[in-house]
């Protein structure tokens, strides 16, 4: 199979990303997602379709079909930075698993070029799909948002069973380093109890490297307006530093793992 000619759909490539895996990284944002998190800061990532978004009143087409070779051309340009910092390529989205062949080809191409790989993902896909990626993946940044199936479905559109099962399988594979990422969303999962539950889950997975608590931010709000979609989080304030510190303590206590605020 020819990885370099494999095509996929992306909506951005961001260089010098430093909160999405080790070192200085280039994030490729893949378009399309299975989930619909209310707080999503990249709402333009959710639809597979190429769409128009207003930025400062000017329409901009979001989404671009590209080959792996084209993406790698950009990714390779920052190789000196990866080498110095242990950085590399991070696939983000949307949900990279929604374009499994493209994601696989990208990761394999990076590995061929000796570039470190990371995946930022919800793990909401058949494990058979995920399994294929794991041999080419150095780090899995895995979102766990809530332990309650019902609340998960209510806020995200889908239940969490598949995600939790996959989390276990990914860790058990021993093929990649796993970090659990918890977006801390006021009114959704920001109580000590809820964080405690996720922390305990992470501990029981037995093999998670660390936990990131990512405080809610409203920096995606403009994009909802630009897409002519309602922003359902209006009025929600980012959690205070004190609150984040308190939750961090709980995450550490419940998981016994290395925990941090932010990516």
């Amino acid at each position, binding site marked *: 199979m020819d990885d370099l000619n494999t095509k996929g759909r992306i909506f*951005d490539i*961001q*260089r*010098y*990303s*430093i*909160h*999405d895996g080790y*070192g*200085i990284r280039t*994030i490729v*944002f893949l378009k399309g997602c299975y989930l619909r998190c209310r707080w999503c*800061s*990249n709402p333009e990532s959710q639809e597979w379709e190429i769409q128009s978004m207003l*930025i*400062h009143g000017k329409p901009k087409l979001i989404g671009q079909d590209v080959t792996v070779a084209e993406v790698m051309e950009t990714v390779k*340009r*920052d190789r*000196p*930075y990866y*080498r*110095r*910092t242990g*950085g590399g390529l991070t696939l*983000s989205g949307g949900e990279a698993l929604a374009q499994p062949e493209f994601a696989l080809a990208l990761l394999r191409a990076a590995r061929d070029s000796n570039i470190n790989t990371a995946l*930022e993902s919800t793990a909401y896909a058949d494990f058979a799909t995920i399994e294929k990626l794991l041999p080419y993946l150095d780090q899995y940044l895995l979102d766990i948002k809530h332990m309650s199936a019902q609340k998960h479905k209510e806020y995200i559109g889908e239940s969490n069973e598949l995600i939790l099962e996959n989390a276990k399988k990914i860790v058990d594979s021993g093929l990649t380093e796993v970090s659990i*990422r918890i977006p801390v969303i006021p009114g959704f999962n920001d109580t000590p109890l809820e964080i405690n539950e996720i922390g305990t889950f992470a501990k029981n997975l037995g093999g998670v490297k660390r936990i*990131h608590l*990512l405080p809610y*931010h*409203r*920096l*995606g*709000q*403009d994009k909802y*307006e630009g897409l002519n979609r309602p922003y359902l989080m209006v009025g929600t304030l980012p959690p205070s*530093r004190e609150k984040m510190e308190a939750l961090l303590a709980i995450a550490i206590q419940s998981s016994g793992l290395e925990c941090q605020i*932010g*990516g």
Partner: protein
Amino acid sequence: MGLYAYDTRDIPKTKRIDKLVDHLYAKMPEIESARAMLVTESYQQTEQEPLIIRRAKAFAHILEHIPIIIRDLELIVGSTTIAPRGCQTYPEFSFAWLEAEFDTVESRLADPFYISEQTKKEIKEANAYWHGKTTSELATAYMESETLRAMEHNMFTPGNYFYNGIGHVSVQYDVVLAVGFGGIKERAIKELETIHLGDANYQKKSRFLEAIQISCDAAINYAKRYASLALEEAEKCADQVRKLELLEIAKNCVHVPEKGATNFYEACQSFWFVQQLIQIESSGHSISPGRFDQYMYPYYKEDLEKGTLTKEFAQELLDCVWVKLNDLNKCRDAVSAEGFAGYSLFQNLIVGGQNEEGLDVTNDLSFMCIQASGHVFLPQPSLSVRVWSGTPHVFLIKAAELTRTGIGLPAYYNDEVVIPSLLSRGLTLEDARDYCIIGCVEPQKAGKTDGWHDAAFFNMCRPLELTFQNGQDKGVQVGPKTGEVSAMTTFEQFYDAYKVQTEYAISLLVNANNAIDVAHAERCPLPFLSAMIDDCMVRGKSVQEGGAVYNFTGPQGFGVANMADSLYVIQKLVFDEKKITLQELKEILDVNYGKGLNADGVADIVTKVAIEMSTAGRQVGEAEIALILQNIIDMSQSSEVQAKGSRILEWIAQVPKFGNDIEEVDAFARDVAYTYTRPLLNYKNPRGGIFQAGLYPVSANVPMGAQTGATPDGRLAYTPLADGVSPSAGADTNGPTAAANSVAKLDHYIASNGTLFNQKFHPTALEGKTGLDNFVGLIRSFFDQKGSHMQFNVVDKTTLLDAQKNPEQYKHLVVRVAGYSALFVTLSKSLQDDIIGRTEQGV
């Protein structure tokens, strides 16, 4: 592994330092008249004597009589003015500008100075003596008429040395610390014994060596005046702690700088007198302490080992020296003040790096110097850090922590480029490895070099303007006739014409620089400075007459990014896509893309048309001028012109720009930089050295941009030019790594007088330990790709507020949050306000 162990821990700041800083900044700096009066008085008494003796005697006369003061709580003494941060004047270099600006110098925006009526009167009286006697006037007399014309037309400006001393030097601080001025004087006496009164160079050399002795004695006696003052104040002092401090100061000043320093405190005091007195002898700035952490280290280490010094006290002394570096000041003319804004004296002090043998010599003091800049939080010294593969990571983290504060320090330099670059200019391997930085970004070997580093500002966009105008500016033929652009049919024709214009302007720049060079040698040789530079004593001549081992002249070009983008736009829109002709481009540039011309811009065109008409034999009276004026205003702002201008600007916006890691554009930048750096290498200076180019603007890209019309890169008339070798503001939209990759593609070796790459960061990029690690990784990776210099502005609230108002200048500012993608300027006002709030909290 380096040569020395080092301590990385933070050392706290004492209360003394805050008090010293507060005192220093309590008032607007003031101009004083003592030096002007004393230098004049001395000159009047020595008219019959050899010039070099007169210079030495004037120096001695000043040091004997200039008022002295010990500021409250000081541990290191020596003040050039009674008022904190005050300045003296130097009429032997130039004075007319100061008199012309007497009444505006206090109210001007860039670097204002208070001046009393009494001072004005005294300075004016002193100045009267200097009519026709200044270096500036002699330099003018040595310049060709076309050189003066090019300067009038803002092709370049050698203003710095035209009006002031040269400076831009680092001396043998180590020698003074070791043997004192007493020892240096001994050397001069010994050297004198080697020559015979019948030798051909006897007259020059003997008088020069005598001048050195006079200067050394002057410095020694000046310190003793401080010793007496400290004793006097100690006697009156009721506070027992301060009394003891004053007695210690008195003891130090008796001993140094006459003799070698016997401990770290004396070394600090001795260093300071050298640093201060060089800047009393001449008004030249960028007197750079250089490798302070190296030559001070033996004194520190010995005291520490003996147990006579604590790290805490050593840090306090360093902090005191740092405060003193901000006590010196210089009043520049209004135009230069804008070019060097911020009262900066560019006293560059560099830490870390390798020694002559290639071993890393980072030590405790390297860390403590960074700490001192963090403690005093003032612009001086211009702190620099040397980086190579052997530089400890923890050391760069310490430096990055300072960068993160937003102070704009330190600047980072790449040993792997600077050393080979200096080797290619004839330095020995040992000397090249021991380089320091002068002023902004200019490398040299201390104590052996007269680098003339800041020789002129060369605006690379001005030859482009002349290319469009067939060598004319405001109706005057300033450059060669390279043909009307309407007749040019290939890109190469246009580019060749640009090169012809540039090379001609460079030849005039050299003419200007060498005229100034000769004038300094003939009117203001500096014996005190020359006592601390090899091989002046052996050669028997001052630095200004070619006494230094290494001699250079380094004028700096800027506008590389504007030129690269402009040429690429011409290639694409005119010759590849044929959307617009060169003639159409010329016409729209003439009217600033229909965005309006300022009064000067309109006046320029009126002058041009009037001259054309009168050359054609037509009468040009007031009525005709009024008509031309009306026509120009109508034409430049008609709705048709405006629409056309906007359309062309949109096309230009679509053309890729330098700074985005795009090979084709970056190749233009590399090549256009060569049009400046290569021709310069063909020229020599009167001191026996060569010209070498720098690529950096200090802050002249702003005032000189104001003298530059619209350029084909879409830059509007009068707006700033690009900063150093950095991309044009807002042109780099692919992030810092892409910008760094583009800049690294320039040939940094050939610009051996230094390049300057400035990056702006949002503080989120440097958050936490990982933020610092990655930031250091960015610097190292740029240096792996053979970039030469990097410095950073970590943006503060003010900058972000400005970004809200002028988003086009800040297109590159990325907000970095996990898993999120956006540029600052694409956010709504409300979200931008959130980020600004976040910036202010320092999170």
